């Protein structure tokens, strides 16, 4: 019952629609589905964009395969990783309590946020208490989910994204395009212009120089920031630590120099112990970025301890539910909480590669986003994402924790059909049953179809117009299958021996 109440009492309407409004410029009566169809059509036609995204992913495929080959048995490692997450998610209450008590025993504070609204007000309260003037932030998808930056700016706090990709997206005023590679759609000349306009740098077409411009710009910001905000990839119940995975070192700096460290983490991130982490960390890096390990995998167990020469005076972990417990309440799709956000399913998805990240209109793009967004924001408005799949299963094959992603898309379709049936389809299927179970009627219907298909191709009547917009009907056959079969039987020399009539 609690779960139902929770879903019904979905807070802050504006949180649920803001990201969509951000990406859909038209406003008005546009629904997420209409926005998806319109943006998908535009992106599919943009072959330049598609080939750019494909070539950006080319290096990823090579390095991922090289690193996977270093595993003596990658499939067995996937088994172990999926079981580690299954075992953790199915005793989430115990492990969260264990994490909280052990983390607090080392001087940190744990806050529980049931929804986005609560998480924002907890963080704003902490910033007021710290009298924060400058905030530095490292990449954190949960903060995108709750629209933290907008809330902070509304209250007059300046916040700088330190991850290079997120920084570029912040300057562009766009959400991330891909939840692991936020600006993979942006060309270097666009970044050069962006830096020239915002930071006054000299134009350049070298990715290395562009990176150094951001590096120089950011260094004093780290030193001057008084609060650092990060996410976390794992919570370790056994030791009360949070684990942050990154490549650039920006999260390390964010958690080292400011006097307060706040981490905003989804409740599903908890794992039982460090041993599980020794399997999950390398797999996250290999599946997500084609690396043996990312550059920095860091465990934090609280603020600066006695005898340490630096580190924050205060550390806070904000545990975010925000409809995750509703996914938990669905045993069929519970394993979508096993997700470690590596992004491997996006990188292999034919839909993602063709429609691009913004088309989804969600915080979490790609196949896994299509599975969980209906739970986070409502099935009625977001079910169309489950239809945006060829069901090829590439996502499920790529998933390092073996989430059955493409079957969950089918589950969503089924659930949507149950809650909001499409009457036209229902009547159509009933009619088909009536026709298909009566040979004489089937013969008549076939005759009508053969003689009207050509007309339908030319006239595109309303019922099939949308379907025909991107497809073509085959030319109608001259005769029915049954007629053709009878003719073929007659022309054969004799029926085969001994077969029943």
């Amino acid at each position, binding site marked *: 019952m609690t*779960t139902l109440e929770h879903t019904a009492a979905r807070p802050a309407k504006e949180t649920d629609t803001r990201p969509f409004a951000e990406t859909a410029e038209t406003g008005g009566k546009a629904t997420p589905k209409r926005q998806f169809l319109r943006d998908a059509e535009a992106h599919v036609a943009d072959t330049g964009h598609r080939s750019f995204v494909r070539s950006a992913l080319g290096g990823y495929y090579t390095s991922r395969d090289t690193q996977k080959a270093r595993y003596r048995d990658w499939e067995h490692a996937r088994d172990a990783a*999926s079981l580690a997450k299954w075992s953790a998610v199915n*005793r989430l209450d115990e492990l*969260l309590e264990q994490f909280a008590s052990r983390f607090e025993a080392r001087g940190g504070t744990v806050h*529980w946020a049931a929804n986005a609204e609560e998480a924002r007000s907890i963080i704003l309260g902490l910033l007021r208490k710290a009298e924060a003037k400058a905030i530095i932030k490292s990449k954190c998808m949960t903060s995108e989910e709750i629209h933290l930056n907008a809330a902070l700016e509304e209250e007059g706090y300046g916040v700088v994204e330190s991850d290079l990709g997120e920084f570029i997206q912040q300057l562009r005023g766009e959400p991330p395009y891909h939840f692991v590679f936020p600006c993979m759609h942006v060309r270097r000349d666009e970044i050069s212009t962006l830096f020239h306009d915002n930071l006054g740098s000299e134009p350049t077409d070298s990715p290395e120089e562009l990176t150094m411009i951001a590096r120089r710009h950011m260094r004093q910001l780290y030193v001057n920031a008084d609060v650092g905000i990060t996410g976390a990839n794992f919570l370790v119940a056994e030791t009360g630590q949070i684990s942050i995975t990154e490549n650039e070192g920006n999260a390390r700096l964010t958690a080292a120099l400011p006097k307060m460290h706040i981490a905003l983490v989804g409740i599903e991130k908890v794992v039982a112990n460090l041993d599980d*982490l020794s399997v999950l960390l390398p797999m996250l890096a290999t599946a997500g970025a084609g690396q*043996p390990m990312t550059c920095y995998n860091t465990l934090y167990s609280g603020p600066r301890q006695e005898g340490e020469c630096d580190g924050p005076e205060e550390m806070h972990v904000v545990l975010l539910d925000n409809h995750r417990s509703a996914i938990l309440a669905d045993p069929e799709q519970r394993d979508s909480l096993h997700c470690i956000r590596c992004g491997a399913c996006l990188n292999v998805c034919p839909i993602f590669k063709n429609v691009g990240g913004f088309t989804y209109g969600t915080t979490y793009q790609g196949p896994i986003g299509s599975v969980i967004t209906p739970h986070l924001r409502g099935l009625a408005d977001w079910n169309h994402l489950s239809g945006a799949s060829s069901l090829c299963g590439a996502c499920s094959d790529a998933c390092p924790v073996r989430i059955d992603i493409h079957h969950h898309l089918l589950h969503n379709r089924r659930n949507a059909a149950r809650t909001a049936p499409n009457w036209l389809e229902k009547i159509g299927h009933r009619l088909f049953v009536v026709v298909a179970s009566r040979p004489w009627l089937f013969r008549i219907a076939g005759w009508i179809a053969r003689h009207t298909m050509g007309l339908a191709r030319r006239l595109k009547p309303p019922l099939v117009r949308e379907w025909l917009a991107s497809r073509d009907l085959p030319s109608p056959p001259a005769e029915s299958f049954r007629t053709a079969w009878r003719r073929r039987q007659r022309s054969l020399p004799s029926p085969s021996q001994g077969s029943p009539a």
Partner: protein
Amino acid sequence: MTPAAPSSDPNPRSSRDAILGRIREALRVPAPPPHVLDRQLVTAAEPSVEPRPEGGRGFPSLSVLPAEAGRPWLPDGGATPEERLALLTDNLEKLRAVVHRCDSADEAGRVVAELARSSSWQRVAWHHDALVEPLLPQLPCEAVAVDGADGSDKRRLEACDAGLSSCELLVAQTGSILVSSRLSGGRGLSILPHVHVVVATISQIVGTLGDALEATKARHGGQLPSMLSFITGPSRTGDIERILVLGAHGPKELHVILIG
């Protein structure tokens, strides 16, 4: 010590109880184990039939499974010290870290001095440590201790060209260096200066990440350092057109000096 929840939380107890209550309600219906290839793993990971006396559902952790068998499916960690040294060196070089093999602390000091001269370092940050201190006399530039009596000053550290630190352990399997806020000069020394020089002995090399975490727990017991960081190569990014660039925010160069 459990600090009182700050006043910023709208209703701290009730949110905690509401979330845990929803989780418990949701978990009353069990979810089947994932479809894995090795059914033996599932049997071992399945919840025990008898609930544990303390009331939990009695799932064993992954560690009860294949840890004793050495996890023969993960990337190799090397069976002998020689294999581990070779694997570590190979992995570090692939990650574009520079490995310097030295026979003695004296030779290590010469290597660091040469690095300082060739890159014209003005200031090097260091911390008090038995492996780090012997390298200082040969340095041709200013040396700044980060853990001195006046504590660490982040502005002074930012002005340093390089950081010189020791580490907890080195991991052959992945080419990682495990640093900690307790044994490696705090959190800033290994990340803020443009160059990070790690000095270690070959006896600090372990096989796998699992071995490293096990050994770290054994060394520090219940009082783990507030930060433990696996450093795997110099800082990097691929955010611009997925093209690899070294030195995004952390050190552009990583030197590993192995003594022994």
